[in-house]
């Protein structure tokens, strides 16, 4: 019996290591065939922004890895609308994350779903394991 795992990402992608090490857990965890969801809120929404440029920081830009999540069957990615709007961002500012739906003739679908804080609370309530980074 699989469990529902939710990875909550609340911090900016650079400045601390939490975002990178969270992604490492998600990628390893994908092999365990559990029901996996990701949530991005607060400054965590910056993790998914397009056009990240880290050369001047001297750290690796790991944002391309998010695009591989669909291949790992990680395709429930919730972005909190309030966090996005508070930072002047829209869905168009985020990476186009997609997956191929095996139940729908492998049609390409969007992985990202905008949800309100209240909806996210319900999603969290429905989980077995919540890991917050």
């Amino acid at each position, binding site marked *: 019996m699989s*469990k529902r*795992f939710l990875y909550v990402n609340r911090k900016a992608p650079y400045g601390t*290591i*939490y975002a990178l*090490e969270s992604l*490492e*857990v998600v990628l*390893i*965890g994908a*092999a*365990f065939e*559990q029901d996996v969801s990701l949530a991005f809120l607060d400054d965590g929404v910056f993790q998914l922004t397009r056009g990240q440029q880290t050369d001047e920081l001297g750290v690796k830009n790991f944002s391309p890895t998010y695009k591989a999540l669909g291949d790992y069957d990680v395709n429930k990615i919730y972005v909190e609308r309030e966090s996005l709007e508070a930072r002047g961002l829209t869905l168009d500012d985020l990476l186009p994350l997609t997956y191929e739906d095996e139940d729908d003739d492998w049609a390409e679908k969007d992985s990202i779903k905008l949800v309100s804080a209240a909806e996210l609370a319900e999603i969290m309530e429905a989980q*077995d*394991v919540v*890991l*917050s*980074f």
Partner: protein
Amino acid sequence: MKFSILVSEGPYTHEAADTAYNFTKAALEKGHEIFRIFFYHDGVNNGTRLTTPPQDDRNIVNRWSALAQEHDIDLVLCVAAAQRRGIADADEARRNGKDADNIAPGFRISGLGQLIDAGIESDRLITFGD
């Protein structure tokens, strides 16, 4: 109830290690089972035996080691996080060409799969960190 614990902050800098320890002790005293304690991010610094706090302060690392010995608790340091932060056991030191190891008694180094496994096998996985 079967608990697992995630410690995601380093000792002394952050209270997470103390709270996790106190929770673990209290849970054991109440008759609960601790399936595993997993250390991630700077939390892996809980597992270096070279820690030398002032004599009038608690020794967080030794406290974990004693708890592991007394209750046979599985203390796991994430290998990737440990490598970044210079925490090694004898095997890791040899594999990475290091001249020393520093893992404390009662700890072992393993992969992130051990964290996922703890989430699957336990009734509750509780995070102590920011």
